[in-house]
């Protein structure tokens, strides 16, 4: 193998470049692939197979390459790529890899791939003659055209017009419904999201090998790779070659090689001549030929160029469900059926390939040396073994042998395997086709697919108007949906447990303030707003007085708890309902679904106002003093301003809505102010409350405080299989008020079973023992596995107020189990706990008025 003095339409001989492969420096030209440059430098093998470690060399000239894998380190990083797709550039540093990447090569930082979106009338995949013709026709018609070609050299003869974009070194990874195509443009590291009215697959045909003994030796190549070496890269791929072909294109390659000065012997399978064995060590040395008349020759050769026929390249077509038909004359699968109206194939992809003899493998020789999947080191013997074990489908053979599952996806050998299976089973050629193809058509890195949407851009981050204060105070944050919520506010490097305990005690003993701005808030407006809410919540909202607040549970049609919150009646025809932080979008969607699809006669409109309001919850026995100290014109005495009502007024000099709701059991005021006043009011409360012992608290303390009161968190204590009755919340279900969503399901046989899991509190016998959330509960700790499971822990905390640990749990027949002992068998020992009613702190509710 050597570079010819002239020739090579793809290379630019005026600018030699240097590259390093496996530590040795070589020369090549721009326009080379790494593979052609290695050939041009006399490197024949240089690669190893992944499983058996056999010597291997470049076999193809494209992404179908099964042997020649490299890691690229300079000037870009690619952990694994076929050398046949790596464009040669000056300073390229690469190393061979046995078909498997070494993750130790992974750089800490990956360049960010851009994602771009493009709409065109016509997308052409493939820049060969058929593709360029199709693109030209479309452009002439006035279409916006995108032409993508996987090769790294410019596509010739494309119309240069403003509306025609040509991407080279770009692969269509997948064609999806309605003309949506994802393209990976490699050098720029760009992912293109293309929506095309028409997609034309001009993806050409892939040459296939023949399974014959020794066919994996370096120097055994596809005829197209040998011809391209001469034509594209000006490289002589061997001095003495045998060309073994079943078709005219393969025979034509012999002509190209002969003209370039290779000594050629042609073996034409159509005349009954066969190559039966290739022999050699680190490269092919001689080739044994059996002629149709039985004559047997052993020919010295350093190159065996094989053409076993041509498969239309239909990876993209098949991934979309496009049909295939076996063409006897061409011995290949061609597109069959119409497919979607917007998708078509042209040229070789459409079946314009030469007739071919049906030669898939040669009978003579050891089946264990006839490779059908070089990257998986699988042979005809392995296929036979799978069939001997009773498998019949090529899909099963694939899964038993892993044939076709390597990086090259069996692109060269897939049809060969299918036909060997057909032959071994005594079936006609084409009885079974190649295995299914799925996107991506060629490997692509996750980094490319992720593009810029990682790190901070992975998902939107929502912060409250008070967020900067929390940051400054060194809050630890908890992700709740997309929201960043203060979890706890550590003092002097305090660990979480201590911070949460301190914040809990502040609320119980003096006061705490929590940023509750993330609560979902929806305004429900219109003459029928009350009637509508009656149908969405389990209790009645239509008779709520203006200025009053009512807690509500929302159920699914199946009767299971979906969300909870409070409704405030702002005016005759105006309610504000709150939702859980993470349930806000879901609740608004449900409201709109019912209004639009079931009850369009209801005159109601819904608006999300979550972001419009900042909310500060001031909780604790001194909450009233704190709000008074911050300055308010609202009479806060319990007589003038009772529990579950709200008042509009002024707090800290700005308009505020004060709501007497409590999620801690303490006296509490929830202050709703315009978002832009949130930070001001928060700071005013903090300043005014400091002398009163007010402290900020986060969701950590909030969780403990509410659990001490037995208040559930939907989505933590419930999991979509829990009814209001299971939670002991029958008091909020008003079946007499008329129908509401989920009502009928509450009397289904399954929802009234007495042995359903029901909400209880658990008090571990050891008051220091903390039950892990999610722990399974059993009634008897027999030690025999499996034990019948009776429930699970949903929330578990250390309670500073109770001076002990406690938990909430869903326990079978739990309502009737109070006082009984249950067990949580855990790897580190069993925890015994006594069942109790869920309200452990201030069960009389004596503290809510301060």
């Amino acid at each position, binding site marked *: 193998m050597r570079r010819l003095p002239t020739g090579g339409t793809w290379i630019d001989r005026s600018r030699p470049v240097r590259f390093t492969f496996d530590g040795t420096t070589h020369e090549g030209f721009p326009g080379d692939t790494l593979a052609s440059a290695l050939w041009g430098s006399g490197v024949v093998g240089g690669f190893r197979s992944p499983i058996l470690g056999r010597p291997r060399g470049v076999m193809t000239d494209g992404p179908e390459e099964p042997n020649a894998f490299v890691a690229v380190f300079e000037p870009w990083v690619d952990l694994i790529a076929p050398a046949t797709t790596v464009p040669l550039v000056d300073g390229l540093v690469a190393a061979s890899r046995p078909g498997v990447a070494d993750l130790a090569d992974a750089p800490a930082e990956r360049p960010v791939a851009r994602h771009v979106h493009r709409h065109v009338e016509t997308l052409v995949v493939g820049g060969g003659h058929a593709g360029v013709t199709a693109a030209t026709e479309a452009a002439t018609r006035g279409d916006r055209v995108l032409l993508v070609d996987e090769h790294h050299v410019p596509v010739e003869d494309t119309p240069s017009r403003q509306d025609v974009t040509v991407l080279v070194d770009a692969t269509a990874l997948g064609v999806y*419904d309605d003309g949506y195509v994802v393209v990976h443009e490699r050098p720029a590291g760009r992912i293109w999201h293309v929506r095309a009215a028409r997609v034309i697959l001009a993806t050409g045909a892939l040459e296939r090998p023949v399974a014959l003994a020794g066919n994996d030796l370096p120097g055994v190549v596809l005829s197209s790779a040998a011809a391209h070496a001469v034509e594209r890269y000006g490289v002589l791929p061997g001095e003495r070659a045998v060309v073994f072909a079943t078709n005219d294109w393969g025979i034509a390659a012999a002509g190209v090689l002969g003209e370039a000065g290779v000594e050629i012997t042609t073996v034409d399978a159509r005349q009954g001549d066969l190559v039966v064995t290739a022999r050699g060590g680190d490269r092919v040395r001689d080739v044994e030929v059996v002629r149709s008349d039985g004559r047997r020759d052993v020919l010295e050769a350093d190159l065996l160029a094989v053409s076993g026929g041509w498969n239309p390249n239909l990876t993209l077509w098949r991934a979309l469900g496009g049909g295939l038909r076996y063409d006897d004359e061409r011995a290949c699968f061609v597109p069959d059926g119409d497919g979607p109206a917007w998708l078509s194939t042209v040229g070789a992809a459409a079946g314009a390939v030469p007739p071919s003899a049906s030669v898939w493998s040669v009978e003579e020789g050891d089946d264990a040396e006839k490779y059908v999947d070089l990257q998986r080191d699988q042979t005809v013997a392995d296929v036979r073994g799978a069939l001997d074990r009773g498998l019949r489908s090529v899909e099963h053979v694939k899964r038993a042998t892993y044939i076709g599952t390597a990086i090259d996806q069996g692109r060269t050998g897939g049809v060969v395997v299918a036909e060997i299976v057909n032959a071994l089973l005594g079936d006609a050629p084409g009885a079974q086709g190649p295995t299914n193809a799925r996107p991506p058509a060629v490997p692509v890195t996750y980094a490319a697919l992720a593009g810029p949407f990682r790190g901070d851009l992975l998902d939107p981050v929502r912060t409250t108007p008070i967020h900067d204060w929390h940051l400054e105070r060194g809050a630890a944050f908890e992700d709740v949906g997309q929201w960043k919520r203060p979890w706890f506010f550590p003092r002097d490097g305090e660990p979480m447990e201590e911070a949460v305990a301190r914040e809990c005690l502040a609320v119980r003993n003096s006061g705490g303030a929590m940023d509750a701005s993330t609560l979902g808030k929806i305004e429900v407006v219109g003459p029928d707003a009350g009637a509508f809410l009656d149908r969405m919540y389990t209790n009645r909202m239509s008779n709520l007085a203006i200025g009053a607040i009512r807690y509500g549970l929302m159920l699914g049609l199946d009767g299971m708890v979906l969300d909870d919150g409070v409704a405030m009646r702002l005016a005759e025809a105006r309610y504000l309902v709150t939702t859980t932080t993470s349930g806000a979008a879901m609740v608004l969607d449900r409201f709109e679904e019912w209004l639009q699809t079931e009850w*369009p006669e209801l005159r109601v409109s819904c608006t999300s106002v979550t972001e419009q309001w900042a909310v500060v919850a001031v909780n604790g026995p001194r909450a009233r003093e704190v709000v008074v100290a911050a300055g308010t014109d609202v009479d806060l005495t319990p007589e003038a301003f009772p529990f579950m009502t709200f008042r509009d007024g002024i707090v800290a000099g700005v308009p505020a809505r004060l709501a007497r709701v409590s999620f801690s059991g303490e006296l509490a005021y929830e202050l709703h102010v315009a978002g832009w006043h949130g930070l001001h009011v928060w700071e005013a409360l903090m300043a005014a409350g400091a002398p009163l012992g007010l402290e900020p608290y986060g969701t950590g303390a909030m969780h403990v405080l509410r659990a001490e009161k037995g208040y559930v968190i939907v989505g933590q204590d419930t999991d979509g299989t829990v009814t209001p009755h299971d939670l002991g919340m029958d008091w909020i279900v008003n079946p007499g008020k008329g129908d509401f969503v989920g009502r*009928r399901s509450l009397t289904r*046989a399954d929802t009234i079973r007495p042995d359903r899991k029901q909400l209880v509190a658990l008090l571990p016998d050891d008051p220091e023992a903390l039950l892990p959330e999610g722990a399974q509960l059993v009634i008897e700790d027999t030690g025999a596995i499996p034990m019948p499971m009776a429930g699970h822990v949903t929330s578990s905390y250390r309670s500073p107020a109770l001076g002990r640990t406690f938990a909430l749990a869903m326990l079978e027949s739990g309502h009737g189990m109070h006082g009984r002992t249950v067990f949580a068998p855990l790897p580190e020992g069993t925890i015994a706990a006594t069942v109790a009613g869920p309200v452990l702190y201030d069960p009389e509710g004596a503290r809510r008025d301060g």
Partner: protein
Amino acid sequence: MLLIPCPWCGPRDEIEFRYGGQAHVDYPADPDTLTDEEWADYLFMRDNPKGEFAERWFHTAGCRRWFNAVRSTVTYGFRATYPPFTEPPS
């Protein structure tokens, strides 16, 4: 990714929509009169045809309006979209 013809906004990417299951499954006028079996039938049982299927879509990240569609479960192609409370176009 499907290109969904929202009757109000025109063709938009599937990612903007939420699927709403079978269309024309009306909420029963009086659920109390239904047996458990009839209620379960309404709650859980849906058609699963091979071929045309009338289904609901919600343009969540667009106009936020629900509509019905007739779509093939074989080709995924939309034949028609139409407003709620109207019959599918023949």
